């Protein structure tokens, strides 16, 4: 089954984020008030691991699972979309204490009210799709 490896990676990710408490509203609040190193430590260590890993992949031209060269997609250039879009997401992140991954993870932990956040996030994505061409990017 081609999808099984992604499903298993998802389970791993869900367990890690829950046990790290990165899905916790409290941790996000604490982070934005600089009252704990916890979240900064998580993001910093993840970044360090990611930077080292990607450098190794690039240097040794590691092939992917299917034997194809790994092509890491570069982000599109721009400024406004990143600063405005980023700030809007930041407002939501600090309000309901979760980013898109944890929305799905929290549903699994039995936090059913998060379904309203999910509906809002789908609506927000849809509204962006409608307004996309009118926004500065």
């Amino acid at each position, binding site marked *: 089954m*081609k999808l099984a490896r*992604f*499903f298993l*990676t*998802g*389970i*791993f*990710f869900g*367990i890690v*984020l*829950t*046990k*790290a*408490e*990165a*899905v916790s*509203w*409290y941790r996000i*609040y604490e982070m934005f*008030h600089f*009252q704990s190193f916890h979240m900064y430590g998580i993001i910093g260590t993840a970044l360090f*691991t*990611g930077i080292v*890993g*990607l450098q190794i*992949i690039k240097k040794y031209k590691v092939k992917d*699972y299917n034997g194809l060269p*790994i092509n*890491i*997609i570069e*982000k*599109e*250039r721009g400024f406004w979309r990143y600063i405005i*879009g980023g700030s809007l*997401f*930041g*407002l939501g992140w*600090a*309000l*309901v204490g979760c*980013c*898109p*991954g944890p*929305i*799905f*993870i*929290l549903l*699994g932990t*039995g936090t059913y*009210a998060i379904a309203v*956040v999910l509906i*809002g*996030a789908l*609506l*927000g*994505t*849809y509204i*962006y*799709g409608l307004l996309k061409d009118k*926004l500065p990017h």
Partner: protein
Amino acid sequence: MELIFGTWHWAISGFLIGVTMLILTYFGKSFGMSSNLRTMCSMAGAGKFSDFFKLDWREQKWSLALVLGAFVGGFIAFYFLSDGSGVNVNPETITQLQTLGIDAPNGKLVPDAIFSFETLQSPKGFAILLIGGLLIGFGTRYAGGCTSGHAISGLSNLQLPSLVAVIGFFIGGLAMAHYILPLIFKTA
């Protein structure tokens, strides 16, 4: 046992999140959670109203499998790998939250003041959750990624746009946590 059932150390957690990103890179994919929201809109037929959603969602099935896994992972971690000792935030944080009328964790991941069934049924409580979701959905798609896509994958690949996005995350996050949240909850 506390090593597994208690709060995982930030260094272990961070390392494993970095590894998740690298595993997906090895599978020939990029690590990003918010793109699933777009895929779900496409599946619901949003392509009829905007070209932005005209994509073949079948090509994104891997990512939906990932998200479904994350849901199951949350279930396993919460019901089978927890002893209810978390979330041990700074005592200062708890005192501060008290002044806003927000309950302390005491083993919960999220406060009842925002996520309980009773809160959900009040117009204000419902509005907070919905508006939070709208900002997350609109903001991540506008910025082309969220914490996983920009703060982890993008920055790991030393992408300047991701740095700008992460600065944006903090502009919005700090404004909400320091200025807007007190306004929302003080009057409660």
